[in-house]
Structure formats: C-alpha cells, structure tokens
C-alpha cells in the first residue's frame, strides 16, 4: 500500500556528477541559486536555463523524470503567476472589471515562474544525484565552523541520518500493522473524514509504540558499540576533494558570476548600439 512512496529520491546513473564530493554539490547548488537571484533580465534567465539543461545532460537523468517530480510545486507556481499578472502596475493589456493584466505583469509572471522552476530543479538535481546519507555527511562537514559557537553540528547530522534511515522502516511497519488490523475487520477506506481519522487509531498506537521501542533498542545498540557523540570519533570514509571537485566549483562560481553579469547585458547592448549609431553618422 505504502511501498510506492519514495522520499529523498536518489536516481542512480553513476554519472560524473553522482561521483562528485557531496560538499561540491551542496556548494554548487548554493552558487546556482545565488546566480538565479542575481539575474534581472530575461537574457540571464535563458542563460541559466541553458546551463541547467547542460548539467541535466551530464547527470544522465531523464528530463521527463525530473519534470514529473516538480508536480508538487504546481499550485505554488500557479499562485505566483496569477498574482504577478494582476498585481503589477504598468501598461494595461486586458482589463476584466477592476482587474487588469499589464505587460509588465506578464513579464514579471513569466520571469518569476521561470526562476521558481529552475530553483526547484536545481535543488532536486542535488538530491537526485546524492544519497541522503552523503548529504547529511556533507552538511556536517560544511557546518563544522558553527561548532565554535556551540552548535551541535554532529548531533544534528546524526539525528538527520537516523531519521532518514527510519522512514522506510516505519513505512513497512505501518503497512504490516494496517494489514494485521484489516485481518481483524478494520476498514480504512469507507466513511467520512472523521470516521477515517478514527479508523487510524488502531494503526497509530502500535506504530508509536514500535517507534519508541526501536529508538530505545537503537540507543542501546549504539551505546553498546561505544558511541558517545562527536568527541574523538573518526570516519571510515573521509570526504575528500579531488581535481573534479575543484573544477566543478570553479565552473559553478563562473556560472554565478556570469549570471550576475547578465544584469549589465541590456546596458552593454544599448551602449554598443549607441556607439554604432554614432559611428554610422560619422
């Protein structure tokens, strides 16, 4: 019943990007997002879209798969587009009663929608090419400086990875308990909302009990293996940057810088035009 749900969906194609250090991917995604927010013109947006397409090609993940994953933001997207279309003042294109769509509004709507979609695709590229555990590992390393101000970085990362590991376990457990209660005649499908919520009690109570039991057992097992937090703990797989990672970071920095520069592109173009005109006259 619940087996089909995938969380932290990792799509393994063993591409160049999959093999990058997870920190590179986190930093790279961050740079891309900064670049996206620095973009001010449609030129920049097109440039960002093109570079995103190239990255998707390198990951070897089918574009259709990525787009399918964006369904979740469809509502948000619609909201953004509609609001921008009607709320921005400017030259009126169509007027419906008190509402009017302006040229500037349309431009803003397209621009914002494009930015939002690319933001989401950029982030999902990171999670699609990195396993959740690699990701928490990377976060732990990247946030390490915060330990100086007593942020329990290691503990947070450990909690995150345990939580991620427990998702499939608890899913399976839910499935099992639901089946066991169905065998006793429980009905989870019919009835109104309240009836349905009530019918979940025989599932939720055993699920909570089992979650606490598992947490308890895990804590004991960790202690039995001498886990006592961050202090003096070493890693089997240390994260290591290689040449690929440095190159990738350079490229992403250049991309962000390039996207920033597109702000001046219209200005540069008009300057060139102006110079051209002057030269033409002369």
């Amino acid at each position, binding site marked *: 019943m619940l087996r089909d749900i995938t969380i932290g969906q990792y799509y393994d194609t063993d591409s160049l990007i999959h093999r990058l250090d997870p920190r590179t991917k986190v930093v790279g995604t961050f740079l891309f997002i900064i670049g996206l927010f620095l973009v001010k013109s449609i030129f920049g947006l097109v440039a960002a879209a093109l570079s995103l397409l190239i990255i998707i090609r390198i990951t070897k993940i089918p574009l259709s798969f990525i787009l399918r994953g964006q369904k979740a933001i469809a509502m948000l997207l619609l909201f953004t587009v509609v609001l921008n279309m009607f709320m921005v003042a400017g030259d009126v294109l169509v007027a419906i009663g008190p509402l009017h769509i302006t040229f500037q509004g349309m431009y803003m709507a397209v621009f914002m929608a494009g930015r939002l979609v690319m933001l989401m695709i950029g982030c999902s590229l990171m999670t699609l090419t990195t396993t959740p555990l690699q990701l928490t590992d990377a976060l732990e390393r990247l946030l390490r400086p915060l330990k100086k101000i007593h942020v329990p970085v290691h503990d947070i990362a450990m909690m995150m990875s345990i939580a991620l590991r427990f998702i499939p376990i608890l899913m399976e457990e839910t499935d*099992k308990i639901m*089946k066991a209660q169905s*065998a*006793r005649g429980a009905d989870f499908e019919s009835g109104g909302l309240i009836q349905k919520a009530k019918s979940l009690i025989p599932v939720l109570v*055993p699920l909570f009990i089992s979650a606490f039991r598992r947490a308890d057992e895990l804590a004991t097992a960790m202690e039995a293996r001498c886990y006592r937090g961050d202090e003096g703990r070493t890693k089997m797989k240390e994260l290591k940057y290689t040449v690929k990672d440095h190159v990738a970071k350079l490229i992403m920095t250049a991309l962000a810088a390039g996207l920033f520069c597109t702000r001046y592109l219209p200005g540069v173009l008009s300057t060139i035009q102006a110079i051209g005109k002057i030269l033409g006259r002369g």
Partner: protein
Amino acid sequence: MPIQLKDISYIYDRGTPGEKRALDHVDLTFPDGEFIGIIGHTGSGKSTMIQMLNGLIRPTEGTVILNGTDIFKEPEDEQVREYLKTRFGEDSREFLKKKLTGKDRKAAKAFFMLQVRRKVGLVFQYPEHQLFEMTIEKDIAFGPGNLGLEEDEIRRRVLRSLEMVGLDESYLQKSPFELSGGQKRRVAIAGVLAMEPEFLILDEPTAGLDPRGRDEILGKMKQLQKETGITVILVSHSMEDVANYADRIVAMDNGHVRYVGTPAQVFSHGEELKAMGLNIPQVTELQLQLEKLGYVFPETILDIPHMEAYLMGEVKRTC
C-alpha cells in the same frame, strides 16, 4: 468448505527492474478441519500465499476460491441488492431504488471482503505488536465490533476466545502492555479467534517464545482444531513443530509448492528438503544417517517416543 488456490502467480514491482515472481502458478487446496503445516525457506512465497487466503494480497494471476466463490470477483448486481436488503431492510429506499450506484457496489464489496476476513482469520508474525487498546477486553472486542455484532455476543466471544488461549477472566480489565511477551501474544491470537473463523492461519506463532510458551500455544491450537473442527494453517520454521502437530504438510520452495502430504511422506524426502534450505526433524535426520549405514526402517519416524520404541525393539530382537 475448503479454500482453493487456482493457478496463482504473484509478481512484486511489476514492470520495474526489481520485478520478482513470489509465487509461480500455484495450485493448492486447504481441506476442512485439518491441521496443515507450511514450511519453506525465507522468500519461498509462504507469507505472500497466506495473505491471499483472506484477501489482503490480490494475486497477479489466478483465483482464490472460498466456499465455492472467487473472493476477488466484483459482486453481481443481484448480490449488491441482496446486501442492500440485509443492510437497510426490505422496504428501505436504498433497496427499492432502481439504479445501483458505484458507492453501493463499493460498500457491497467491502462487506463481502469483511465476510472473507471473518471466515479466514490471519495471525501475523509477532501479533503482539498490533495491540492498541487500553484493556485486553477492548482489544479482543475490536474484531467482533468491526463485524457489527451485538454487545452480548461480543462479550461472549471475548470470554470464549480468552479461554481458548488459556487465560481467565481476571485478565479482562488489565492493560495488554503490562503482560509478558507470551501472554501478549496469546491475547493477540484471541483477538483473531474472537472473529470465530473457520480457517485460522498462524504465521510463525512461536517465534521468540521459550519452549514452554511454544508448546502451550501450539497445544491450544491443536485442541481448538480437534474440538471445534476449524482448519488451522501453521507457517513455521521449526520442522519439529510441524511434524508433531500437522496432519498435512506443504513444502514450498522459490514460489512453487514442492511437496504436499503427511509429515512422514514429506520428510521422507530428506535430501531434497535439505537442498531447498530446509531441515528435517532431528529424529528423522538420525534415521537418515542410520539408513546410510545400511539399516532399514519400515517407515519415516518423526518423534522421539516412536524412534525410541523402534530402536529398543530392534535391540531386543537382535540381542
């Protein structure tokens, strides 16, 4: 009435690279009133198969027939009307209306499935993990309550099933969570027995119990089968358990039914069972070793008293 599996196949994750055939064209009949043992290695398809018997898993191919009817078939219009008549009464609006709605069909289907679940009781592995009520009485009453029974009847069934698993009335108002592991499991089994099933399926009911708890539970189930005439289907990893309690054994391997027969018949295939990753009772293993040394046995021996009697007889005869 028996349960029949006809040409059943089940495929997990169909259409993905992880596609796996858990059951492959299985034909099997579970006759009435017997104690049937199912043995098989982990992943042999036993769990999938028993969940089909009460409609929790729908086979990819094939039909499950209980008392002559296919349990997954969409109910006919007539049956839907019959259901509306019993549910709402002969002169109700629901029964007299001309056109059946999708909602009626859905409700009828759920109702018929509930009847299947009532007739075929399934006790999962570690059933104590499904307890959820404040008192043992309420927890056992969950099943009969879902069947929509009267309060008196529920009370009668709770007492009866509690007694069947060997606990007395003093437990009724206790919380199921303050019991020992073995007692919890008995309460959970009582929760299924309270549905008064005609078939009782137990998936590894003795896993994690001490030998005494194991003998108590299996003894009670055997007694239940003998006294009430219900069919008990026991899935077990313990060859001794199935050899001692079952009238008939089904040996499964890799999604196929390999052997069906009396314990003596099935365990006479010692070498083949071992190749399937299964064991044979230790006494039978002893017999196998002796046969390799040239001794001849008239039949397959499954338990210690028989073996002792036979060996002592031989010793007396030859000395």
